[in-house]
């Protein structure tokens, strides 16, 4: 965990990079997550962490920390992202309370 432990070539890092830049990919993701995971070549461990919404596990696998709150927003939305918002609380659930 932390920026020193990022795995730059991890498939999930490429996925998060692309998905924020491409609304079509975001639509694909929400329609068929498994197809997008397969297209990007995620490992079983990455897929499991994504499906469990386990932000901490994704960080442990080498996803860049900056992407972790963004992953919570991919699932819960980005609008009005205050500390009690669903996205922030999803992050808090694994990263702070269980971290």
């Amino acid at each position, binding site marked *: *965990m*932390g*920026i*020193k432990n*990022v795995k*730059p*070539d991890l498939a999930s*890092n*490429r996925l998060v*990079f692309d998905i*924020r*830049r491409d*609304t079509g990919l*975001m639509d694909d993701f929400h329609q068929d997550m498994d197809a997008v995971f397969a297209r990007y070549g995620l490992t079983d461990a990455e897929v499991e962490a994504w499906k469990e919404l386990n932000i901490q596990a994704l*960080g442990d696998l080498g996803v*860049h*920390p*900056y*992407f*972790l*709150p963004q992953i919570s*927003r991919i699932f819960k*939305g*980005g*609008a*009005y*992202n*205050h*500390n*009690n*918002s669903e996205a*922030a609380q999803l*992050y*808090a659930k694994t*990263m*702070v309370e269980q*971290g």
Partner: protein
Amino acid sequence: MAELVANIALSHAPGLTGWLDQAPKDEADRLVAGFEEIGRRFRATKPDLIIGLANDHCLNMPVDGVHDFCVGTAPRWQGPADWFSDWLNVPPYKVSGHAEASAIIRDRLQGAGFDATDSQDLLFDDNWSVPLLYLTPDYDVALVPIHMNCIVPPLISPEKCYAAGQLLAKVIREDLPDGLRVAIMGTGGLSHDPGGPKYFEVDEEFDRWFLSLLEAGDSQTMLREATIERMGAAGDGGTTELLSWLIPMGAADGVAATTVCYEPSVALRCGMGAVHWQMAA
């Protein structure tokens, strides 16, 4: 010969535009007043061009393909990128670039040995969308956006950032078009930890220490003590955005900064501040 007329640094946390009403009212009022004040001071210098320095947030440079600097060379920019619109809660905007100035800056950075690339196709997020709203609400000042890698190791050193600021001041004086009134804006920080365990915390002690070094114009202590590690300890995921503040500090090169505002805003998940360096008329 162009002129450096404004030299500033400020935070760009998205909560300032996205969920400010969640902050205590007195804190929110002080934040708005402070950011409006830095905007007034900025516009009073009547700049034609902003040379901006901000974290790319891995939005344009992928984690496995970062550079220290990416100079935006397009003649026109727009923001925010689609996915960030509702998060930021700012209206879509367009702002002019400056192809000639950006090419000169890129060439001078590369010529001096900096790891600098360029792009005509940069997406903007909070990095420009938040500060521009307060600095140039009419979007009538051209922007050369210089995206930095502030969060993927190995990071550019504070010393190199300071030297880049010194170089930019020289480029403005010697190489940019005659009569151009130029502002340098570093944006990011202060302490925050997106992606880390301190996501809901602010390190006020660190922030006030960092600001005190700017206010003292103490570059020696800053470069000796405000290391990557020290910044990271105040928030591993984001505090190193303060590397962008060392560039206007280098451009000021010994001039003391004035803090316009500072709020350790837990509601915005960021130490929020703005400073400026008074440049000679």
